[in-house]
């Protein structure tokens, strides 16, 4: 039987199929549908220091071959996560990656300090799509300088693998990937959602309560594959690819572009069994192709 284990630097995963942050809650919701232990890891819903209420409704709408979401990081906050959500996740034997977000550098640092010692948490993922309130609202993820400084600081106090999640809403993602690597990121995950909006032509108003939202799903897959392909050439650290993955064929594009692991996001909503099936299909694919491990196809489409 082919071995699905992958090593992303110091992060060892039983297989390279992860649940993308924000699309899998804290795992519990899906536990009656699938065996959480089977997944490579669960990247839990974006966590902030204090609980957040999130954005006004409507928060989601469908778009051609995709969806927009403007959840607004609704989450129960650090304390409730540690006392209520994490124990349940650990009980289910899932590997947990915590996606953290904040409005200031201090938020990130506090979260990283509180979380990185906790047993059961295998890595942290920095969600940089939040506006930096101290720097006039510039997103952490769109400025090399602001991002680099944040990563350096978090790196300093975080003994576990640090994943930096890149936003696609930038002119040159390779530049930011490079800055993330230089500043000490162990792994890069990409892509987060593309900024988009839908207008309700009946009411002549933006449909989402938050006006704009993040576009995800198969619609953005070509953009995501391209970014993984480009970033693979500019950094040496491993990549986690995501954006519109629904099945094995989609995932293979990401591996071949250069991702060492993939995450399924909106695809979970359409098919709650997408991840376990992808894991099985990936194993069959490796066996059929006579491959020992996924590593043999990582970046194979690079020319």
């Amino acid at each position, binding site marked *: 039987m082919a071995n699905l284990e992958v090593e992303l630097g110091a992060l060892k995963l039983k297989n390279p199929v992860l649940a993308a942050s924000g*699309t899998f*809650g804290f795992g519990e*919701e*899906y536990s009656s549908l699938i065996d959480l232990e089977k997944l490579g890891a669960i990247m839990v819903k974006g966590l902030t220091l204090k609980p957040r*209420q999130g954005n006004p*409704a*409507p928060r989601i709408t469908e778009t051609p071959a995709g969806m927009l979401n403007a959840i607004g990081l609704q989450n129960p906050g650090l304390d409730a996560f540690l006392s209520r959500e994490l124990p349940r996740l650990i009980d289910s034997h899932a590997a947990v990656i915590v996606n953290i977000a904040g409005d200031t550098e201090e938020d990130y640092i506090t979260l990283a300090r509180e979380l990185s010692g906790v047993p059961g948490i295998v890595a942290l993922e920095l969600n940089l799509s939040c506006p930096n309130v101290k720097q006039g609202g510039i997103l952490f993820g769109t400025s090399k300088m602001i991002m680099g400084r944040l990563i350096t600081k978090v790196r300093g106090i975080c003994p576990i693998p640090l994943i930096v999640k890149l936003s696609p809403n930038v002119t040159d993602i390779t530049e930011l990937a490079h800055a993330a690597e230089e500043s000490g990121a162990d792994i890069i995950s990409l892509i987060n959602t593309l900024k988009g909006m839908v207008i309700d032509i009946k009411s002549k108003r933006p449909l989402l309560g938050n006006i704009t939202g993040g576009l995800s799903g198969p619609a953005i897959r070509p953009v995501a594959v391209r970014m993984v392909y480009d970033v693979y050439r500019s950094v040496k650290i491993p990549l986690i690819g995501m954006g519109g993955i629904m099945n094995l064929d989609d995932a293979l594009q990401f591996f071949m572009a250069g991702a060492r692991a993939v995450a399924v996001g909106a695809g979970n909503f*359409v098919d709650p069994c997408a991840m376990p099936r992808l894991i099985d299909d990936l194993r069959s694919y490796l066996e059929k192709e006579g491959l020992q491990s996924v590593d043999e196809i990582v970046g194979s489409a690079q020319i």
Partner: protein
Amino acid sequence: MLSKARVLEIRKVSSNCYFLLLEEARIARESLPGQFLHIRIGESLTPFLRRPFSIAGTSPENGTLKILFQVMGEGTRILSMVQKEDRLDCLGPLGSGFSTQKAHNTSVLLAGGIGAAPLMFLSEALLREQKKVIFYYGASSLEQIIPVRSFFPSEAEVYLATEDGSAGYRGFVTEAFQEGLNNGLKPAEIFACGPKPMLQKLAEKNRDWKFPMQISLEERMACGIGACQGCAVTVQEKGETRCGLVCRDGPVFNWDEVVW
């Protein structure tokens, strides 16, 4: 929770509503009135997301269940073209159902349009509990009215209201119900499902009436199981507001929980 239900029958029941009879033993057995199924429409990437539909009735003995749906957009248009023997990918039953009081009493069911669907299922449960069921059902006109008599247990009293007066009371179903109250109707509890303005109106009125009242809400859904936080509705509990999820905390809410 995920099943392929077999289509036993699909039938047009009004100018834009369809009746769907599905066979899936587990869902038929487990479903409670007020719960819904999250159905995948075709296998194409458009429409992308599943669509939620209330369960309109079950027959656990036969392993079958009913759905009533209205053609609104692309998804329901495609659903209306399924054929006998097709398989529908159904996630569910999901959400919390209606809860009914222990005592024998008079239950009033108020439906606007396709909101009738979950109340049909509920009426069967109420009748089994030996309650008197009075059903007020409103639509914009006669041709939009589902032939309730063929879906509703015959023991239920049914009152129709149409906005254009083409059948039953001329006006909104809330007004028809108000007339009933004026004529001495004494509901012990109310269950309502329909368009938001109707439910909002009822909640307003109920500040005077003060009946026990449960309402079933709709919101756009992605996951349907509480994972994405997409179907948020602001709810209040003891003066404090928080974010509730229609798919998990609802779709049935107490009338005074919802912040409109």
